[in-house]
């Protein structure tokens, strides 16, 4: 499938989705994350990275320093484009090296640097449904990511809407 929606009732559900992504995404994956301030983008990354063995206390917002790296089963590269002004500035950080590495790269505020991201990727949009619940819309760009969505949906079956 190319699009799949997950309704998270609370933050634990958001972390469950992150854990599901950790299981479904192969090394070398790139995931773009978009949604308003306070939607739970960092929380999703926490669920993913800790499932792969990163330490919970290490996974914090990278807004200020732009890139965090977490040592894990597969290394996790956590970008935040919130403070990035333009494509040039993002490209100076050498994102292509991260995209090509055998880790999992996540980019918060991805739409700000959309043209710099690989054509094939998973796009995750978070919407605030009410004070605790969140709607995650996952869109696969490329066949590889379509199968990621298939296995993710099977894994988290029953939680999807």
């Amino acid at each position: 499938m190319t699009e799949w929606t997950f309704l998270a009732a609370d933050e634990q559900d958001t972390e469950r989705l992150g854990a599901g992504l950790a299981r479904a995404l192969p090394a070398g994956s790139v995931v773009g994350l978009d949604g308003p301030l306070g939607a739970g983008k960092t929380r999703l990354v926490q669920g993913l990275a800790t499932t792969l063995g990163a330490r919970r206390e290490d996974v914090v917002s990278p807004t200020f320093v732009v890139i965090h790296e977490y040592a894990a089963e597969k290394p996790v590269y956590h970008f935040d484009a919130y403070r990035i002004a333009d494509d040039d500035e993002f490209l100076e950080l050498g994102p292509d090296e991260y995209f090509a590495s055998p880790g999992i790269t996540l980019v918060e505020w991805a739409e700000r640097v959309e043209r710099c991201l690989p054509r094939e990727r998973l796009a995750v949009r978070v919407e605030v449904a009410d004070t605790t619940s969140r709607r995650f819309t996952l869109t696969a760009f490329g066949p590889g990511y379509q199968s990621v969505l298939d296995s993710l949906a099977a894994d988290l079956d029953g939680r999807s809407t």
Partner: protein
Amino acid sequence: MSGPGTTPASSPRYVLTLETTCDETAAAVVIDVPEVISSVVASQDALHERFGGVVPEIASRAHVERILPVIDEALAKAEVSLEDLSAIAVAHTPGLAGSLLVGLVAAKSLALALDIPLIAVDHLQAHVYAGRLAARRDIYPCVGLVVSGGHTSLFRCDSPLDFVHLGSTIDDAAGEAFDKVASMLSLSYPGGPSIERAARNGDGSRYAFPRSFIDDETRLDFSFSGLKTAVRYQLVGPGHADFAELELDEQQVADLAASFQEAVVDCLVAKASLALKQAGLNTLCVGGGVAANGRLRERLADEAMQSGFELIFPPMSLCTDNAAMGAIAIERLGRGETASLELDVRPGLVREPTAPTGG
């Protein structure tokens, strides 16, 4: 080593210190009293205020362009030449890898060319050392609170160079929360000063925002992500909304800013006090950009008076990122701890994995 009031047996040792951990490109010349002779910071806040009230230039290119003029200016202001230097110090951890590299490469090149020692500086230890510089005397052992756009951490500081980590934010740094809430309220960047300004006419008790972990005496951690989200709900409720289109009256903004600031300050004051109690120490030294916040200073001063601990705040210019605090290099030089030219940057966030959970 010579000190104030003594006649130096020889001329002082000059150390050039460099700081490029994040946005600021900075250089300073210090002597081994320790004392700061000159300090230059090329800040990008004013130059690069951009959309959404965010985004100073973070690219390492900016550091590359600025580092040599900044070094030249620091030397010129100190009226010393490269040949007068006894050592080169550089902040190599923590920070943004590309930015750290610019400072490190510059420092290594100078150390090699001048055949003088290279000294590694830990940026967080340096933030606490800014208080030591301001106090002009030994302040250790103390509890160090480093609170900025990128960090919110508590340390037991046994000496300038011996820190034990006590607690940190588990999500957003305090300064980051200031920036993001300022952006929601359509206030200018950086968010610290603009929230503080707006809050002056506000009622800090109007909105009951969350204070994570404040009653949990078992941990010295912080969490500001939920607070940011709570401000969001107060503003727009659930659903996607463009903050720029909100119509808020001035009093509402003032009350929101004041209530938010009060919540952050409550957490910082509570955990710093708890850290002092648990560590059995009587001195608190606060560093980092958020240490420039007037409300935090006021509330900590009250707490210090009531609880009878000693409070040390660097002046504003030493709170935000600067190279003067790199004077901590004097302490390493004193210990004979120079770095090899193999010294690498340590962005500070790559650690050993624990056993994977889940399956």
